[in-house]
């Protein structure tokens, strides 16, 4: 978003990407090499050969983890990054999501806070993301949706068999079901075709280019402007600070692992919450001995993802009709104003569960191997619906990204070290939401249901990682201002989910895009007014 906004405004942009262009054909229909499920490797990077992280466990123990392990909390490393492989849910955060502290008050043990901007401040950028990237959806059936000026550009997707059962059940329960908004073409849009409803979607590049991401929308526009150069397979290692304490560019390793320097007037970081924080922390100098923007030790703090409370229901008849990608019916009845709970989250039917993942899905106490296990798989694979949703985690200061003092990646750059912290509020809320999922499945006709709060004890930031460079008005308790500019440094910006103060009860993609437009638009308009960010 930022590269596109700047390059069409006439600024000269170099866009660094650690991976390359990627296509569906590299991994096709492979459950074992995808993005969220990656025992044999990630489909879109990063790879196990060159990348490492260190994970700290709640008991204080730690170990080195590979990108193919869940504990790594990977985000795709390719042109378009997570937007190539994501599930493509296109949520606007609700008005309350920007005002969590005003709405719920302080939560002990947390760093809950209001954003320095409101939903209204971001509304236009949401709209721009919906129309430029392309969203299918219809908010009119969702009474909890925040106000909007323009509808989403494409009609919503129709439901498959499981979603139809849930839709009718939700209506009977007095809930307000609707078709989830997605960054996926329900009709031809943006010069690309409509979705072919494959069972694989979440975790894979789209074989027909119907899933919309930055790689097939804004990046091509930026490149076509003639003002943007994309350097793939280049890993940025440090932001360069000169003798006057001013940022003058970045150093990076090119595709042949040679160290190079790219001078710049302005540096914008969009490497996702973990890597953006790591880059700032790794950019130490005599002016910034704790890393850039880290005078008050807020860089890397407040790492958030989403817990996923869930319930599974077994039905008498097949509910699986192979009309992909699976998830489509949502209720936002429990995102906010739940009794005794801070925040909440939406509930939806899950994307199709592939056979290997299904082998781990059994009612509690059931044997996970042997004859019974195989029979359950055979009898119930097409009879189970999973209802779940992203629960808004309450931010904690010490759930964090640091740089590890010893472990380095292939290029000798200190790796990210992730530490967990959980508070009681989250599990209470998750149990509440899981209970609603159970209720919903029961009404839909499931004869056997089991649920899980979905709260792990470790770092579960995954692809929804956020919060590590919080935006705020007070430099003492935040890293950037409300335009993503690092407080102490006029020509350094952040434009990704690192900025999120809180992370909503929603997938963050559309909010990240909207913030990208906001930061990019701000820099472009200031530059063209003569501001050189000195």
């Amino acid at each position: 978003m930022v590269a596109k906004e700047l390059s069409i405004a006439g600024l000269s942009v170099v866009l660094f990407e650690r991976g390359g262009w990627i296509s569906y054909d590299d991994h096709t229909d492979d459950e074992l090499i995808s993005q969220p499920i990656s025992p044999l490797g990630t489909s879109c990077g990063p790879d196990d050969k060159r990348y490492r992280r260190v994970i700290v466990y709640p008991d204080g123990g730690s170990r080195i983890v590979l990108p193919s392990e869940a504990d790594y909390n990977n985000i795709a490393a390719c042109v378009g990054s997570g937007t190539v492989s994501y599930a493509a849910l296109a949520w606007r955060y609700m008005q309350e999501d920007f005002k969590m502290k005003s709405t719920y008050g302080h939560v002990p043990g947390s760093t809950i806070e209001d954003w320095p901007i409101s939903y209204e401040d971001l509304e236009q950028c949401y709209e721009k993301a919906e129309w430029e990237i392309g969203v299918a959806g219809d908010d009119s059936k969702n009474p909890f949706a925040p106000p909007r000026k323009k509808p989403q550009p494409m009609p919503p997707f129709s439901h498959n068999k499981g979603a139809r059962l849930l839709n009718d059940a939700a209506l009977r329960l007095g809930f307000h079901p609707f078709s989830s908004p997605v960054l996926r073409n329900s009709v031809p849009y943006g010069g690309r075709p409509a979705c072919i409803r494959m069972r694989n979607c979440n975790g894979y590049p789209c074989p027909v280019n119907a899933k919309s991401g930055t790689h097939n929308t804004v990046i091509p526009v930026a490149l076509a402007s003639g003002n943007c150069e994309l350097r793939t397979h280049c890993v940025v290692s440090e932001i360069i600070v000169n003798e006057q304490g001013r940022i003058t560019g970045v150093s990076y390793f090119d595709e042949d692992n040679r160290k190079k320097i790219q001078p710049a007037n302005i540096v914008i970081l969009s490497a996702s919450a973990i890597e953006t924080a790591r880059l700032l922390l790794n950019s130490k100098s005599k002016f910034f001995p704790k890393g850039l923007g880290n005078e008050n030790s807020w860089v890397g703090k407040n790492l958030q993802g989403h817990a996923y409370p869930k319930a599974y229901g077994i039905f008498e008849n097949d509910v699986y009709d192979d009309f992909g990608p699976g998830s489509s019916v949502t209720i936002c009845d429990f995102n906010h104003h739940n009794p005794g709970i801070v925040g909440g989250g939406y509930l939806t039917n899950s994307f199709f569960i592939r056979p290997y993942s299904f082998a781990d899905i059994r009612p509690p106490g059931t044997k996970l191997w042997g004859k019974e296990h195989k029979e359950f798989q055979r009898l119930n694979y097409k009879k189970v619906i999973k209802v779940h949703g992203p629960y808004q985690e309450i931010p904690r200061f010490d759930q964090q990204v640091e740089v590890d003092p010893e472990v380095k990646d292939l290029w000798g750059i200190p790796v990210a070290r992730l530490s967990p912290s959980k508070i009681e509020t989250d599990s209470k809320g998750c149990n509440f939401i899981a209970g609603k999922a159970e209720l919903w499945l029961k009404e839909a006709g499931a004869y056997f249901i089991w649920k899980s709060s979905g709260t792990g004890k470790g770092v579960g930031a995954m692809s929804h990682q956020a919060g590590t460079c919080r935006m705020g008005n007070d430099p003492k308790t935040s890293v950037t201002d409300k335009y993503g500019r690092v407080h102490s440094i006029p020509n350094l910006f952040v434009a990704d989910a690192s900025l999120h103060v809180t992370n909503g009860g929603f997938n963050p993609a559309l909010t990240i895009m909207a913030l990208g437009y906001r930061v990019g638009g701000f820099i472009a308009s200031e530059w063209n007014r003569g501001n050189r960010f000195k």
Partner: protein
Amino acid sequence: MKFEMTGKDKLNRRGFVHLAVLGTGSICLLPGCMKSTYKWRFFTDSEAQLMDALADQIIPPDEWPGGRESGVTNFIDKQLVGPYVRFQSKYRKGFAAIQETCETRYHKKFEDLTWDEQTIFLESIEAGNMKESAWAGGFDKEFFSMVRDHSMQAYYGSPRHGGNKNNMSYKMLKLDYPLIIGQNRYKT
């Protein structure tokens, strides 16, 4: 534009190479040829026999093939010299621990125990109840959980990795394969 071109280009090239390999590779599929040239990549023959027995316990044969027939052992052996190279020592240690314990308790190899003896033995490993020093430090639970997980990957994952022979688990689950018309791009 570049995105699409790259994909198509690769597909055509790979498709061609794939066909070429099929053409020449079939010459080697004579029974005698297979027997004399085939070697496990990591496993010893006796380890492979044990793994076959474990695979059938984890996913038993019934009206559908079990873990052994679907190629679980081949999958794990293949991954152990690939992405799972980090698990090599655990397999070696775990296999040795199983045979050692069976030898002490039953004076037999694991694969020579009765079906029910095998099941009870594995349940005990899974539960972390092994008293012998070879299993100390929670290795029993850890080892079983690893073998079980890898066996499920082999049986229910894509056949391109050496398991799920002839898409047998997809057939068992009544999942159409290939995905849909126009998506037949399976690589073996």
